[in-house]
């Protein structure tokens, strides 16, 4: 293994350094700190490319793990600060640094003149650091830390324009919704680590958890409970229904932020985490089925919502939700590599689309596609890059999106072949959703670029700093697909790149019937050598899960037909500009349901936020102020009453009772006794002598 991988931590540290430096000295610099960010990310990017290259060409590679004991946690357990570098890490590093670098460059121009320009770059740096921390983490706790930090950055950047109430609300909504999912993540991580207690001192270590799961050392309860809970976290972070509600609102942030955080990187953290724990996921059919079903629901219904949006960023947001659904569903049908492949390509083309959208919004000062139109002429570069992105998103053949989405569909097909219903679900619903995707993207493109300019501004092409990232990403949106395509049948390709640290063939999907699985091509000879037994695979070529990527003419045909149909329909409706009545908004109840976003937001607000924030909290306060305090006060009053009773009954009526009674009796007795003090000295003397006599007598008697 080359020494470069040892320096993976530098990739992570550079953005943090950038954030700190920008905060410290950014304002004094000519570029207001943006140059620091760009330089740091550039370096980081180059290093990530190096790492990616090394892991790719040599793939599959043994994972490289380096850690230091960071703190004891008690009971002999240790929290490590460590990195785990393998193909998956390298892919994510490459994706994050690339997009982040592009966004940095883009933002330098895009954010020009905005308030808090320096702060923006510092936050970008902090976010990139957090995301990379999550990616390279060798243990779940560190991953959770990165996870929470990206959530914070997301909150801070969504609420970047915090003067407006809706932006504040969007930030809060994003943070709290994801935080709700974090309940699942945190408890899930805790449950998994609890399963490791007897096995190791580092119960959060991802590799060890994976190995333990594969070796059958984790109980089914641990796996099912832990993974379902973690999946809850993934759902909120990766916008799976019904926890997707925050993502469209998150578009309140600046567009580069949407591109970086809410399209390419942070929202994929959930998918990434599932992939990281894929050996655990693969242990249980129920877990996989759950994941697949939620993924399918999201990919379809999320996509539908994009149909009725007017806000370009929201269209993209819903499409992001839909694409994330593909990735999650892929995990659920054994399409581990397909999922990450889609994550990878989607990161590029969705970032491209968002940055393109930013360029458009910059030009027309509106987010709404109904305010655009005819942009193709005014903004040619934005136009063609946006179209490339849209094609990739729609899965037009030979773009990256086509290859990656097809991998998912094929994974579904194979899964179905192994006898699982969810496989067919993914295949057919995935195809249907592809049609929807094509349609709404075509709708958006026609409305934006065709027809007449409906904006009140004269659109102008953006500057070089904004266009360059668009072009780079456009190239990547096409080129990335060739990493796993019929054009790259031999290793190394994307699948061998990721082929660590997976399962030994014989223990893959322990719940499948071996014969069926083999027949369907799900498992087979030497398939996916595991991280632990990689050496046993020898030096020969390693076969990958779904075999060598090949053309699937049937699928290609269906995809082409659906694509043409969708584009044709869109052209009919929107080709001539904005129609009087937008067909997607004229579908009666169907439109109503979509516009109401299936009622999730409303439900959440009306039945969760309001009751908790207003009713339950008031009830709790009431119980604190009135019930508990009242109880204590009641005890106090009761005591007082009891005391009054005591006083009246015992003290006053039974005079000698209680303290006052004692006092009164003392007074009474003293009143009687004081009469002895008559002042008659002679009597005193008499008594004195009498006493003496008595004493003498007493002594005499005693003797």
């Amino acid at each position, binding site marked *: 293994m080359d020494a470069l991988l040892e320096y993976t931590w530098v990739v992570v540290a550079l953005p943090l350094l950038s954030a700190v430096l920008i905060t410290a000295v950014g304002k004094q610099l000519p570029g207001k700190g943006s140059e620091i960010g760009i330089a740091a990310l550039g370096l980081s990017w180059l290093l990530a490319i190096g790492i990616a290259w090394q892991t790719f060409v040599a793939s599959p590679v043994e994972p490289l793990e380096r850690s230091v004991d960071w703190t004891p946690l008690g009971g002999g357990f240790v929290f490590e600060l460590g990195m785990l570098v393998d193909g998956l890490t390298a892919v994510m590093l490459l994706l994050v640094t690339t997009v982040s670098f592009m966004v940095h460059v883009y933002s330098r121009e895009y954010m020009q003149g905005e308030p808090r320009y320096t702060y923006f770059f510092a936050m970008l740096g902090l976010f990139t650091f957090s995301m990379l921390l999550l990616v390279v983490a060798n243990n779940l706790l560190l991953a959770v830390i990165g996870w929470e930090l990206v959530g914070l950055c997301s909150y801070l950047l969504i609420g970047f324009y915090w003067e407006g109430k809706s932006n504040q609300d969007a930030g809060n909504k994003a943070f709290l919704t994801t935080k709700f999912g974090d309940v699942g993540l945190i408890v899930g991580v805790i449950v998994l680590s609890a399963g490791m207690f007897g096995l190791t001192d580092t119960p959060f270590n991802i590799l060890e958890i994976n190995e333990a799961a594969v070796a059958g050392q984790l109980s089914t309860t641990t796996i099912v409970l832990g993974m379902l809970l973690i999946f809850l976290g993934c759902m909120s972070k990766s916008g799976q229904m019904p926890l997707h509600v925050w993502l469209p609102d998150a578009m309140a942030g600046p567009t580069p932020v949407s591109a970086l955080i809410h399209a390419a990187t942070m929202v994929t953290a959930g998918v990434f985490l599932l992939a990281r724990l894929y050996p655990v996921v693969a242990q249980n059919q129920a877990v996989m089925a759950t994941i697949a079903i939620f993924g399918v629901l999201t990919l379809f219904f999320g996509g539908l919502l994009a149909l009725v949006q007017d806000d370009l960023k929201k269209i993209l947001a819903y499409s992001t939700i839909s694409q994330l659904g593909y990735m999650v569903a892929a995990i659920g049908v054994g399409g581990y590599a397909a999922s990450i492949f889609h994550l990878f390509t989607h990161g590029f083309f969705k970032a491209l689309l968002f940055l393109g959208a930013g360029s458009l919004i910059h030009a027309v000062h509106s987010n709404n596609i109904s305010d655009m139109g005819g942009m193709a002429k005014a903004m040619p570069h934005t136009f063609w890059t946006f179209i490339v992105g849209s094609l990739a998103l729609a899965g037009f053949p030979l773009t990256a999106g086509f290859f990656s989405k097809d991998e998912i569909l094929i994974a579904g097909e194979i899964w179905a072949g192994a006898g699982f219903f969810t496989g067919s679900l993914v295949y057919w619903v995935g195809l249907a959703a592809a049609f929807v995707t094509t349609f709404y993207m075509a709708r958006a493109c026609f409305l934006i670029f065709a027809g007449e300019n409906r904006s009140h501004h004269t659109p102008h092409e953006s500057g070089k700093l904004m266009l360059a990232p668009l072009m780079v990403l456009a190239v990547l949106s096409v080129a990335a697909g060739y990493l796993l395509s019929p054009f790259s049948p031999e290793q190394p390709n994307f699948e061998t790149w990721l082929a660590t640290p997976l399962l030994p063939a014989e223990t893959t999907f322990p719940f499948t019937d071996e014969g069926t699985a083999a027949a369907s091509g799900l498992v087979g000879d030497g398939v996916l050598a595991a991280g632990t037994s990689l050496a046993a695979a020898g030096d020969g070529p390693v076969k990958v899960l779904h075999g060598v990527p090949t053309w699937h003419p049937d699928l290609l045909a269906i995809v082409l037909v659906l694509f043409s149909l969708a584009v044709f329909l869109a052209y009919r409706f929107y080709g001539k500009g904005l129609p009087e009545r937008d067909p997607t908004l004229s579908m009666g109840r169907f439109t109503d349901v979509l516009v109401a976003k299936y009622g999730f937001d409303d439900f959440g607000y009306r039945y969760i936020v309001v009751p908790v924030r207003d009713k339950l909290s008031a009830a709790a306060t009431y119980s604190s102020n009135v019930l508990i305090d009242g109880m204590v006060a009641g005890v106090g009053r009761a005591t007082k009453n009891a005391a009054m009773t005591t006083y009246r009954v015992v003290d006053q009526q039974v005079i000698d009772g209680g303290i006052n009674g004692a006092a009164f009796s003392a007074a009474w007795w003293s009143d009687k006794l004081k009469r002895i003090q008559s002042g*008659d000295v*002679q*009597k005193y003397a*008499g*008594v004195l*002598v*009498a006493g*003496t*006599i008595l004493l003498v*007598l007493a002594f005499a008697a005693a003797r």
Partner: protein
Amino acid sequence: MTGHDLVFVAVGLLTAGGAVFTVTSKNLMHAALFFAVTLGGIAGVFLTLAADFLALVQIVVYVGAVAVLFMFGLMLTRAPIGREALDGQNRGLAMAVAGGLFVVLSTLVIGAFGDLPTAEVTGPRIDDLGIAIFADWVLPFEVLSMLLLAALIGAIVLARRESGESGEELTVTRIEMAQDRDPEALEREQAALTSGSGGTGEEHA
């Protein structure tokens, strides 16, 4: 029983009788006179006990000076005469206590000394006494002289009438002290005081 004893019994009876009349007499002057008789009797007792010097001192100091002093005291204080006036309401108590005391004391005395053999009474010679006073007892003797001087001065101070001195003095002081307190309590106190002193005043009258 020797003649000596007989003399002692006679003198003793005289003394005891004088004492009884001293403490029971209805007449003040009689009581004082009986007191003088008793003192003389005691001088006689001293003689029978062979304490000649002490007997002389007894006559000179007590019979000569103290008894006369008492008579002056009685006459100067214009005391009323009569049993009720002379004796308080404690006579019963006094009788019981005195009787009881006498019984106890005599029992003790007899118990302690009843079996002692009779001895010849021998007193010290007068020159021995002189030597004892000015050798062994010289310091107490001088201190006694100081005491007498102090008593003399004290008696003069106490008995002298000072200008402005009156029976109301005590009351005035108490009111002055009370002025620090709140007026209401003061008023109450004064009222109580007036009625109290008024009561005693009536008794005096």
